[in-house]
């Protein structure tokens, strides 16, 4: 065992990278669920975002255009879900699962020509002076812009939900769509917007994997992160900062356990491999002891005639 081989600064820096796709997807889904819609298609929207972003970045040479395309692609796919569930009033669980399957297939199709292609490198934040600081530099000032966007987005969603009128309306729609409707709020329109926001976030998260974390295109490369994001939203009790904490914990323990293995720590590998799930669930369950429940109208179908 040689723990000195683990560089804590690099560890923290890489856990932030590992956590960002999860965070982005979870924040998007959190807003969707706050509006009373359960979209199980996160995985599908992520993978479509991953290929849209990758393809656009390769074709245009600009990673930032790629991320824009990823958000657009995710939102576009989520619009399909919105049509099914908000206009055609289809079952949300079934539609969400179908969206994931559809997304996986569509991304494989779109990605045919991109296997083995290298994307353009994403720029990193480089503040003269700050980025070169020991310890703090690599952790706080040495990342790509999307990582910061994830944190900023978390803060924005928190402010929006807690302090703004728009947030109040969104929550009202999610708690009781009938009441919100009676007050004259356009329930369906608000939900469609929330679903598209969720799709855009999931797309960004997917592109973060294909453009920064891995970076390459491979079929099925999101490998279940969308599902973890869904679970994270529940365990975070629909609170943005807890989702951030959960994502960083999950990313942190994932990266940590790989480092521990490489350093030859004599903990059985099976325990290390399950540790990210275990630790994240444990911490969030303890935190959610205050019983803040799910939005009351979560998953329920709304039609103005009911």
């Amino acid at each position, binding site marked *: 065992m040689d723990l000195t081989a*683990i560089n804590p600064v690099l560890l923290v820096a890489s856990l932030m990278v*590992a956590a960002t796709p999860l965070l982005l997807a979870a924040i998007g889904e959190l807003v969707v669920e706050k509006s009373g819609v359960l979209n199980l298609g996160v995985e599908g929207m992520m993978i479509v975002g991953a290929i849209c972003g990758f393809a656009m970045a390769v074709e245009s040479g600009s990673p930032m255009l790629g991320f824009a395309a990823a958000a657009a692609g995710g939102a576009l796919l989520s619009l399909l879900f919105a049509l099914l569930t908000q206009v055609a009033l289809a079952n949300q669980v079934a539609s969400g699962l179908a969206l994931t399957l559809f997304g996986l297939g569509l991304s*494989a199709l779109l990605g045919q020509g991109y296997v083995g292609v290298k994307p353009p490198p994403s720029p990193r934040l480089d503040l003269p002076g700050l980025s070169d600081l020991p310890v703090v530099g690599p952790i706080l000032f040495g990342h790509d812009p999307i990582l910061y966007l994830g944190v900023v987005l978390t803060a924005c969603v928190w402010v929006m939900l807690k302090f703004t009128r728009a947030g109040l309306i969104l929550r009202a729609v999610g708690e009781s769509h009938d009441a919100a409707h009676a007050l004259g709020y356009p329930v369906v329109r608000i939900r469609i917007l929330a679903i598209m926001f969720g799709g855009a976030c999931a797309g960004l998260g997917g592109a973060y994997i294909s453009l920064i974390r891995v970076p390459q295109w491979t*079929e*099925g490369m999101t490998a279940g992160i969308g599902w973890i994001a869904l679970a994270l939203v529940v365990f975070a009790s629909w609170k943005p900062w807890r989702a951030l904490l959960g994502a960083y914990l999950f990313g942190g323990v994932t990266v940590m356990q790989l*480092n521990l293995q490489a*350093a*030859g720590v004599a903990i059985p590998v099976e325990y290390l*491999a399950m540790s990210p799930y275990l630790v994240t669930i444990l911490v969030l369950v303890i935190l959610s002891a205050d019983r803040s429940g799910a939005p009351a109208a979560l998953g329920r179908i709304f039609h103005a005639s009911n």
Partner: protein
Amino acid sequence: MKLSTLLTGAAVALAMATGAMAQDKTKVGFVYVGPVGDGGWTYEHDQGRKAVEAEFGDAVETVYVENVAEGPDAERVMTQMALNGADLIFTTSFGFMDPTINVAAKFPDVKFEHATGYKRADNVSTYSARFYEGRAIQGHIAGKMTQSNIIGYIASYPIPEVIRGINSAFLHARKVNPDVEFKIIWAYTWFDPAKEADAAKALIEQGADVILQHTDSTAPQAAAAEAEGVITFGQASDMAEYAPLPRVSSIIDDWAPYYIARTRAVMDGTWVSTDTWDGIGPGMVAIGEISDAVPADVKAEALAMKAAIGSGAYHPFTGPINKQDGSAWLAEGEVADDGTLAGMNFYVEGLEGDIPG
């Protein structure tokens, strides 16, 4: 009672209907653990499937299902294939072993071929490639080229095939570089690009300048390409898009000749259950081009080793070799027997850490 009669009737009708259609065409099914676009393991199996189609043209029909999870879902997929009239089914991952045996018992007339396993039946063959022969060559190049003397190894599951690869690579790295040390990460997945990339990064951050992988995607190659001065080897497929650096060589699985031969055997009615384990000699394992990043003398040595293994003059597990605990395994000049290799569950002397599970 009535329901089961009805179901049996339906199954018989289905079997008859598909049987009638399948008379002129031989239907060959493939069950894949990853996507065909993984650029590694599953990609090569799919190349083999395409070779079967090219060889027999209209006489065969191939079907495949990708991304099949190891476990009960695999059984469902195989059953479905058998019900749909497949005459021959290749199941191409170690974890499909028990599902293959279970399904094969239900369909005695369908032939099954399971890759990398060890359980056989009258209608189940096994086949695998001696990847450890290629690992010996990788170990040699890695031992010669490492500057930090730390070689990172991304392992998948603790099964004999993976352990053999680690041992073979380690023995040959140590042989040319006594200071070399292996850091091993068990990823517990065959295919998860993000996790594989994270594992490669963790190893690189801890000083590894050679990354060997036994997982199926090209993600570790991409991670190594980001870092400076790290070399890698293609796994299962050539992964030539990462040549000349970081990928300096590769192990390529060539399943096409085997798949064609077995399909022909089914067509001729000469198929019998066998156990095939071929290596560099018969061509089931190929060594991808060694790039110019490798010094010429190292490249020449590697090619000489490849030739010696191919001709049978050299076996990668030739004594003296001790087990990790120091007990003797192979005496001077003794060669490992296939039985021990097939069930290998121990590290050789010099490797640190324990095999999980």
